[in-house]
């Protein structure tokens, strides 16, 4: 990746960009620039203004004030299509592809070459092949439906689509959030190809290691302002975190004394339709047990099996009830909830929350009896419950009746957690609870997990982010191909060992 030199005109430059939505100031003076062939990281907590800045750059919302220039010429896109015509394309976190159409059709969508309305199939195929070739991914079959590709390959298709539009600046929003390690390597490779051709990349990520790995420079946003740009090679991660939150890194993983007690949940020979394949685990009171592994290793499936959302192919799930009896769980989620087991879904948007409902309604969703009498809902009690959890978890919201859809990612996650706690669950199954949320909210969630464990709950914690597993957990197990291949005390692991265990010996 090229060395940024100060003498050249930057590809993109922003000066004093401001944007308000009603009374909320989203951007309050952003200065940054991207050079040709540079990967420029954009980091900051949720609510720091990253999304708004991306939307301004990609033409979704206009800036109120400030100057943007592209290649030295003024740049004020009024729609994504207009931005694309200037060569600025955004790759969204949730990929924007038509799953029923082929690879070729997706790459050429909207810019198909045609004569009198009829597609020129050879020209379109070569357009798609060229774009994929530039990413060295000519191996992707042009005629395959995109819905049948892996997530990583889909992302490549979306990048190829940007290239087919002669993109000069590509904005990537959390591009690795759902990628496996192998796909990540593929993505980084594609990014290297882009920069070698002089394309600029704005790389938005919550993962500082990633920023350190792929970016040349990084700009930190805080409260809608750019607070600093650093050459990644010259700066320690701790410094970036300090810029982002003004907090010191040692405080990130709080740990209070947590006496480990008797096993609350014992899983033996757990097997599902495909994964896991014979999982054995014991989760003890006061313990946070981490599950590491690659995507597809069977971690999410294990949690869903334990919670009764997937059919059990084999194995037993036994629980020590609050009454001190051992209870074997055999039915569905309702049974789990009754016995105080709770699951936090990895898919906050679709499964974790009912986005159309209010904060308070979401909180009481799994425990309607707490707010009803003889089947009649007591709306006052719903509001009270909402208010209580806003206070206890520090949820930032207008009030208990605020629509869940309008909360930020971190606050949405807290609402989902509040719902678990409202059911008074003792065994918490948390699937990627910090995915896609800002560092500040992450730290708060770590603190909450620590407090719950110290209070005698047991937590099974699935995460793809090794540092947090190591920082938060008492023990960490690594899953590979549906089995737990190794379980150690957290102190006996380091990230390299976790990665090695997760990927397995080279075959």
């Amino acid at each position: 990746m090229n060395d940024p030199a100060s003498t050249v005109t930057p590809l993109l430059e922003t000066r004093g960009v401001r944007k308000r939505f009603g009374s909320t100031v989203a951007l309050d003076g952003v200065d940054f620039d991207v050079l040709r062939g540079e990967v420029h990281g954009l980091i900051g907590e949720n609510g720091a203004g990253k999304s708004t800045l991306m939307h301004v750059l990609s033409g979704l919302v206009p800036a109120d004030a400030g100057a943007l220039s592209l290649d030295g010429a003024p740049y004020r896109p009024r729609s994504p299509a207009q931005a694309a015509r200037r060569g600025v394309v955004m790759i969204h976190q949730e990929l924007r592809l038509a799953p029923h159409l082929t690879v070729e059709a997706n790459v050429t969508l909207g810019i198909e070459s045609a004569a009198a309305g009829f597609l020129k199939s050879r020209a379109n195929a070569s357009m798609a092949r060229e774009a994929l070739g530039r990413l060295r991914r000519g191996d992707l079959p042009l005629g395959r439906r995109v819905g049948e590709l892996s997530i990583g390959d889909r992302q490549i298709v979306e990048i190829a689509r940007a290239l087919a539009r002669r993109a000069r600046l590509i904005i990537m929003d959390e591009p690795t959030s759902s990628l496996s390690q192998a796909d990540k390597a593929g993505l980084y490779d594609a990014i290297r190809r882009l920069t070698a051709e002089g394309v600029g990349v704005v790389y938005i990520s919550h993962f500082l290691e990633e920023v350190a790995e792929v970016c040349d420079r990084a700009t930190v946003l805080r409260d809608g302002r750019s607070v600093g740009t650093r050459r990644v090679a010259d700066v320690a991660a701790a410094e970036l975190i300090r810029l982002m939150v003004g907090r010191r890194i040692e405080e990130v993983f709080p740990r209070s004394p947590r006496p480990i007690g008797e096993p609350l949940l014992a899983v033996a020979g757990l097997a599902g339709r495909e994964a896991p394949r014979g999982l054995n685990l014991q989760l003890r009171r006061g313990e946070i047990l981490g599950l590491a592994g690659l995507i597809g290793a069977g971690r999410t499936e294990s949690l869903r099996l334990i919670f009764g959302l997937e059919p059990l192919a084999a194995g037993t799930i036994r629980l020590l009830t609050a009454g001190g009896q051992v209870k074997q769980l055999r039915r569905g989620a309702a049974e789990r909830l009754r016995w105080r087991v709770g699951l936090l879904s990895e898919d906050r948007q679709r499964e974790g929350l009912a986005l159309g409902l209010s904060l308070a309604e979401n909180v009481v969703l799994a425990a309607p009896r707490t707010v009803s009498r003889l089947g009649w809902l007591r709306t006052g009690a719903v509001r009270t419950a909402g208010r209580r959890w806003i206070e206890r978890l520090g949820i930032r919201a207008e009030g208990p009746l605020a629509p869940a859809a309008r909360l930020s990612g971190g606050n949405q996650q807290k609402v989902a957690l509040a719902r678990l706690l409202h059911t008074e669950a003792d065994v918490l199954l948390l699937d990627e609870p910090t995915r896609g949320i800002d560092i500040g909210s992450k730290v708060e969630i770590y603190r909450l997990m620590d407090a719950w464990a110290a209070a005698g709950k047991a937590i099974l914690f699935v995460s793809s982010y090794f540092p947090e597993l190591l920082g938060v957990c008492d023990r960490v197990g690594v899953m590979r191909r549906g089995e737990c291949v190794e379980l150690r005390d957290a102190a006996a692991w380091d990230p390299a060992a976790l990665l090695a265990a997760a990927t397995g010996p080279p075959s």
Partner: protein
Amino acid sequence: MSPLPLTPAPVPARRSAWSRWTALGRFTGLVLVIALFSALAPEAFPTLTNFRTVATQTVIVAIAAMGATLVIISGGIDLSVGSVVALTTVVAALALQAGQPPVLAAALGLASAGLCGLLNGLIITRLRIVPFIATLGMMSLVRGAAKLLAKGETVRPPFSWLEDLMSKTPPRPWMLVSPGVWLMILVATATSIVLARTVFGRRVVAIGSSEATARLCGIPVERIKTLVYALAGALAGLGGLMQFSRLTLGDPTVAVGLELDVIAAVVIGGGSLSGGEGSVMGTLIGAFILQFLRNGCNQVGVDNYVQDMIIGGLIIAAVALDQARRRLSA
């Protein structure tokens, strides 16, 4: 970057095998239906005359279903088909009654149907009303308009060649089948080409597959949707002309519930109401399966109520099978 000992796993070539299997599965279904009734009624069912009759009976549903295929692939639905068919018969009959030449009468019928479709599209895209509700409203509105135009009665026009389009035996022997059947084949071929070979067709699929993606890629989503509904209206109108030809009169109360047969044909043919999925060949086979079932049941003497139950079961079974196969291949 870490040179992990990992290469992307090769994805098995599944797509082509899968789509061939679905098309084949549907065709097998059609053959099974024909074989079943041929065995049950060997005298009456498998005859050239009867097959001609079935083909002619399929024409109306099949032509209207071509439009509905486009609509459903785009992620929408059109409930106004039956009403538009009725309006078309009334408009054409009134024009003939007023002494207009048959060509003009047909054109007026088609234009009024196209207009209804355009209105559907505008209500959906401009007023931002979901297709189900918009076309539900239009279903009642257009039916009422047809009755108003016809003053609540059937309209009896003088004889014209329009009545030959749907004769059960072709008006000229060299035609082999009635002109309506040829028209159906023509419309199906054209729709198929539009879907597979034109920019418009590809964009219709893109919108049904992921509207956000289509928008992001600069596709004029509203304009294309409007056009899809207008086309569907015009094709329903063409079906309406066939209906007129069959009845030889304008009847504002005809084709009540036709839209459900049309949707059933698309769905049996593999169309998905969540959009992106559907094919012309599938729809055509779906329409024929429905008609052969009806005809066969009549030949065998199964009464109407039981026929309805069989068809209902078939619709559910077809979709259930599709989903099971999709799960297996996913």
